[in-house]
């Protein structure tokens, strides 16, 4: 083989190629979220056509959308935690059960007797500890996340049942109940909590090393490890985060249902996962946004709200729901030029 030609350094000065806005950093995500916003608008338009009395009257519309946000708040908080876990390539099937367990734990007579502070602490601590167990089983016990959190889901529901004796535990703490009853600036406190969690989640994911490392683990765990990231510790932290979200969601549900119960949060895990995926989070990890998940949750809640307002029968609701989900994702998909993605089923 021959040797080099000349000492090469003929690089032009950096050529600023013209980039459209959507080609810039994060443009994909922005496009996706815009499409979701489009779906949301379509739903509102459907509302205007089918129930003009509610959707065309400013005050009613405001009230209705506040109701939607209120209904979305507990599942929305769970979805924020779920988004982190899913971006890291994991999954947390235990969120609904942890919500139930935390709600039961924080509404036992004993806990209630110590007041709101103790209840808040109990709910969040239960979530955090359960998350710690999930995370440890996955990071150190090397269990698949699906199985570890499935086991947690079963155990947590069982424990909730055994603590409550399957009774609904009335919450008599006025402060906690006030989250659902009281409003600030016309917005119920539960909604404010929800939005606060979303905001914190956004900052955490996009602006901190914690968030960047979460993406790294999900995108390429081996690369993350070789880059010196403590993958295990990060994994544990992520499930703790999800657990804490369960605790917060439990407080929201307790204030809304004015009770703790082992039946709370039934199937919320599925809804949270579905909302995150609709919002653009990849089940395989490495990709996802908080805003997308938020929109995913709102779309689901808005659909249910439309159904109820239009007095649709449950069977019809379900059939249509399936169709809407497919359409929503398809709309989103055709917005994103997708040539680099693997084809089908991958």
């Amino acid at each position, binding site marked *: *083989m*021959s*040797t*080099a*030609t000349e*000492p*090469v*350094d*003929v*690089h*032009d*000065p*950096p*050529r600023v*190629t*013209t*980039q*459209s806005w959507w*080609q*810039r*950093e994060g443009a*994909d995500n922005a496009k996706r979220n815009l499409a979701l916003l489009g779906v949301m608008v379509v739903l509102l338009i459907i509302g205007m056509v089918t129930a003009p009395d509610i959707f065309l009257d400013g005050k009613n519309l405001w009230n209705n959308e506040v109701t939607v946000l209120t209904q979305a708040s507990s599942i929305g908080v769970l979805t924020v935690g779920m988004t982190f876990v899913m971006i890291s390539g994991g999954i947390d099937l235990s969120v609904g059960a942890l919500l139930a367990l935390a709600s039961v734990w924080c509404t036992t007579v004993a806990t209630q007797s110590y007041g709101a502070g103790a209840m808040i602490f109990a709910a969040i601590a239960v979530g955090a500890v359960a998350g710690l167990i999930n995370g440890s089983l996955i990071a150190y016990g090397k269990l698949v996340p699906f199985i570890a959190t499935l086991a947690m889901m079963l155990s947590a529901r069982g424990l909730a049942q055994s603590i409550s004796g399957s009774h609904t535990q009335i919450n008599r703490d006025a402060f906690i109940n006030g989250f659902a009853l009281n409003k600030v600036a016309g917005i119920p406190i539960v909604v404010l909590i929800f939005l606060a969690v979303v905001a914190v989640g956004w900052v955490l994911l996009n*602006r*901190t*090393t*914690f968030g*960047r*490392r979460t*993406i*790294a683990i*999900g*995108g*390429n765990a*081996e*690369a*993350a*490890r*070789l*880059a*010196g*990231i*403590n993958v295990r510790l990060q994994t544990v932290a992520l499930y703790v985060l999800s657990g804490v979200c369960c605790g917060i969601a439990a407080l929201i549900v307790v204030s809304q249902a004015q009770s703790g119960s082992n039946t709370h949060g039934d199937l919320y895990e599925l809804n949270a996962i579905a909302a995150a995926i609709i919002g653009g989070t990849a089940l395989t990890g*490495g*990709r996802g946004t908080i805003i997308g998940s938020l929109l995913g949750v709102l779309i689901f809640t808005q659909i249910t709200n439309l159904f109820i307002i239009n007095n649709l029968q449950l069977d019809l609701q379900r059939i249509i729901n399936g169709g809407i989900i497919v359409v929503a994702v398809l709309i989103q998909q055709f917005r994103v*030029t*997708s*040539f*680099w993605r693997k*084809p*089908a089923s991958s």
Partner: protein
Amino acid sequence: MTAPPAQPPETSPEDVVLRLTDVVKTFPGVRALDGVQLEVRAGEVHCLLGQNGAGKSTLIKILSGAHTPDSGEILWQGQAASFGSPQVAMKAGIATIYQELDLVDGLSVAENLYLGHEPNSVGFVARRQMRRGAAAILQRLGHPEIPVGREVGKLPAAAKQIVSMGRALSREARLLIMDEPSAVLAHDEVQNLFRIVRGLTAQGIAVIYISHRLDEIREIGDRVTVLKDGRTTAANLDAKSTPNRELVSRMTGRTIEYVFPVRPAARAFDGEPLLRVEGLTLPGRFADVSLNVHGGEIVGITGLVGSGRSEVLESIYGARRPSAGTVELAGRRLRRGSVNAAVRSGIGMAPEERKSQALLLAEPIYRNVTLAGFARYARAGFTDAGRERDAAEEVTRGLDLRPADVRRPVRTLSGGNQQKVVVGRWLLGETKLLLLDEPTRGVDVGARAELYQVIRRLADEGVGVLLVSSEVPEVLGLSDRVLVMREGRVVREALADELDEDTVLDLVMAGSLLDGADLSSDAVEGTAA
């Protein structure tokens, strides 16, 4: 075999920063390292040579904390050290560029450069600082045109390699390890890389450099350590003066030369071409490419990385859907953008990126070799594992695959051996036209010679071959006819005899890495099956 006495070049023995003694590492069924000795001095470029599977990558993974050795001693800057995890090794001042790309596709260039040590204040990423730092690193690497905010997943392979290098440079390292960094780089990029390496060694930083290209080792290396079958067979040879013959014989235990099979001189290929491509266009990638390949002919395409060669192959193969143009095989027009149609009519392609495009890592070797043809060994839909194994064994023996047991998972093979599996897949027969994209990437000199002979033999049997390679001598030496591409266009077509390396480099050199890449184009066509 033991090492001949070292001939210290310009550095003195006190400068030894790293010394390995009798390092052993065993994987189930394979002793990857079987007593390795290595001595690296400050400010030198120490080259590691060895056949595919000799244990080079395993050795550097031990140094970088990715693997822990079973036994042996590591002296780092005079003190016994053990690198239990990548963090420890990095703290100690060892930075590594791995053989397989280790980037996170979903993060931006800047974030990848600083992954694991992001500039931050109380956990909040200092984004401006990071972007500025990243831009500075890329500037230093001579690639200010790579946008620091771009998602790495959307960069071409060569740009990824540069980011990978930048990541290692973003750390304050005393020792920089590079595992086949030049495998995805074209000629000018390699020069650029060497310029950077020289800058580092001038600061007293030690570099371990792995490559299968002997000429590179001559150019940049100071001393050479040769591994064979997990053992050090020669240590501290002088990189400039040791003859090729000796290096190769130390590596392989036999004497061969780095060669190309004889091209049957003055062959005239007229008559109907086997493959006829007319006006093929993929917006933003390449335009109006016309070419043909006759049965028995080897046609090489060369050009800069990013000039669109891979895309031409992929479009012919149907893996991408071109916007215009036709592909005809033996007079029959192929359906645009359908791999199935291509495969059914007898085209095979060994793609460029083995891990993501070619291999089932968890599956055994033989199933990877027969991936495109297991149906041929099946009867009424029922597979025949025995026949598949036999067929795979025959092919892999011809390529000197090590270890030879075809029931091993591909995952456990070294990089070069994985490449042999990828190419081997299309040597099983019944292929009329073979598209080879960088077929020798990471393949050692010995196996390379054997691979060349296999390709030539196929051609002699009447198979048409279209070959893409960044190594100009390879294209010139192996092909009957050569096409030179630049910025998505064919700029020259000639018989290989009529060209020499300098002419080709002149033709190619008119632009830099990303000229042809056209990162801004939005008219990108989707892949389609």
